[in-house]
């Protein structure tokens, strides 16, 4: 008698999600504390280097302007790191079969893996924001924008992380994607400056970058000021997430670089 799982294998889904969460929670010093230290250092050095000489940006001090961008950068990098490392390590060590053999559909796999990355992104964001709030008064202008952008950005980077993890076959390749794609994109997307400071052409380029909208909208949630169009940001993030989801689902379904 085959076991009946129903339309969704909830037990399997929940188990894989739990494994993904425990994977980072077990080494919380590396996955939560270390991003926190990095963010605090960036905040300190940039506000010391520039905060004393720059005028108010969008009606807040440079440090207050900086915090949402740094928190978002940290969430993005950690969501990406969670899913990508999970898949690459499993592929290299060979224990990816433990994920592929159980009766989980491509959709369930995508959901569980992306859910793990999303959870890490949100955990890092929450911890960092709470700690920073001890040192610096943080206004909250709109909880809805704050939450939407936190979730949309973490999910987006989790999905990109799955794609990168599927593609990469070695740790070097993964390090290259992190160093040459994710870090530059997150650094140059307006975390440290208002894109209004960019010359015309580069401002237009910056406004095509989905990473820009996640930082801009998230910052709007705090300080109530955005550089770009909020509506365009919501549309870009939603569309990016849907497209990435479909791409991820399709590749896992086909077993791209997973099955011979």
């Amino acid at each position, binding site marked *: 008698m085959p076991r009946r799982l129903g339309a969704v294998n909830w037990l399997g889904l929940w188990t894989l999600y739990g494994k993904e969460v425990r994977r980072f929670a077990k080494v919380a010093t590396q996955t939560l504390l270390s991003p926190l230290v*990095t963010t605090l250092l960036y905040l300190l*050095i940039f506000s010391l280097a520039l905060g004393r000489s720059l005028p108010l940006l969008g009606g807040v001090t440079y440090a207050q302007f900086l915090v949402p961008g740094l928190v978002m950068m940290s969430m993005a990098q950690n969501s990406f790191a969670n899913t990508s490392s999970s898949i690459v390590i499993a592929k290299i060590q060979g224990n990816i079969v433990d994920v592929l053999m159980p009766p989980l559909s491509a959709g369930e796999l995508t959901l569980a893996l992306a859910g793990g990355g999303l959870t890490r992104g949100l955990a890092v964001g929450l911890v960092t924001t709470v700690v920073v709030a001890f040192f610096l008064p943080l206004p909250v202008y709109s909880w809805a924008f704050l939450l939407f952008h936190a979730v949309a950005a973490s999910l987006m980077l989790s999905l990109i992380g799955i794609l990168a993890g599927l593609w990469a076959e070695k740790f070097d390749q993964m390090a290259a994607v992190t*160093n040459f794609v994710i870090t530059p994109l997150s650094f*140059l997307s307006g975390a440290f400056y208002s894109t209004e400071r960019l010359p015309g052409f580069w401002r237009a380029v910056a406004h095509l970058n989905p990473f820009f909208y996640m930082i801009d909208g998230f910052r709007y949630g705090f300080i109530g000021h955005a550089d770009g169009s909020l509506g365009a940001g919501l549309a870009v993030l939603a569309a990016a997430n849907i497209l990435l989801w479909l791409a991820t689902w399709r590749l896992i379904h086909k077993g791209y670089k997973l099955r011979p």
Partner: protein
Amino acid sequence: MAFDTQGLQAPALSLAVRRFGRLNRIGLMSLYRRELLRLVKDRIDSLLGPALATLLFMLVLKVAMGGQRVTAAGLPLADFVAPGLLMFAAGERAFSAGCVSILFDKMEGMIADVFMAPLTAGERLAAYGSACVSSGLINAVITAVVLLPFAHLGIAHPAALAAFFLAGTLMQALLGLAAGFWGRRWDHYAAVLSFFLIPFSYLSGMFYSTTGLPALAHNLIAANPLYYVIDGIRYGMTGVSETAVWPGLLLILALDILLAALVYRLFQRGWRVKA
């Protein structure tokens, strides 16, 4: 004979102890070359990665300033920051090179190859130390090329520049080697990077002038040896310094000697390497 026996004939069979002289030059150079080859082998990550990170910092600072003229210690901010970024590139690489090398070989069980070879602790220290410093300096040169379009990189006092660069990079290399002996797992390396090396490097007055800082912050930074290294390099490049330059150099040299003695002892005893 049907096959070539050249390789099979021992040159001159001698059961006497092999003599190396006072210094095992071949061994020392082999170890040095092996260590440097590691850098060349993954050049994309270890050479271009740090250069790109430095470039990002510079770009971000430039854009964040906008048209504004931000100065630190009387210098344009870009020129003030460039010496620190160069030192960061060199120091971070020297530290990681030493730490990863020892840790990786330990975990793979390959470190026996180094400890079994007829090298004294001093020769091992010299080979590893100079390889790490070389890697760091190569990285600094690449970073300097990358930074050229953004900052004025001059040489005001060549002797000070060279002395501080060498002494500072050596300090980081020795710290990295010590951390490599200390670590047992990759987690330890990650922890050393994020909880020691990064705070140590960033809280060094690299990005901002210490004048006008609150007393506590000022004292914290003044307790960081890297502060004197970066200040000395800035003096070498621009002629501007915030501290007394030559006493700073003496301090760094004294630290180098202490650390070298410590790492020598680690090589001699094989701390956490030999059973």
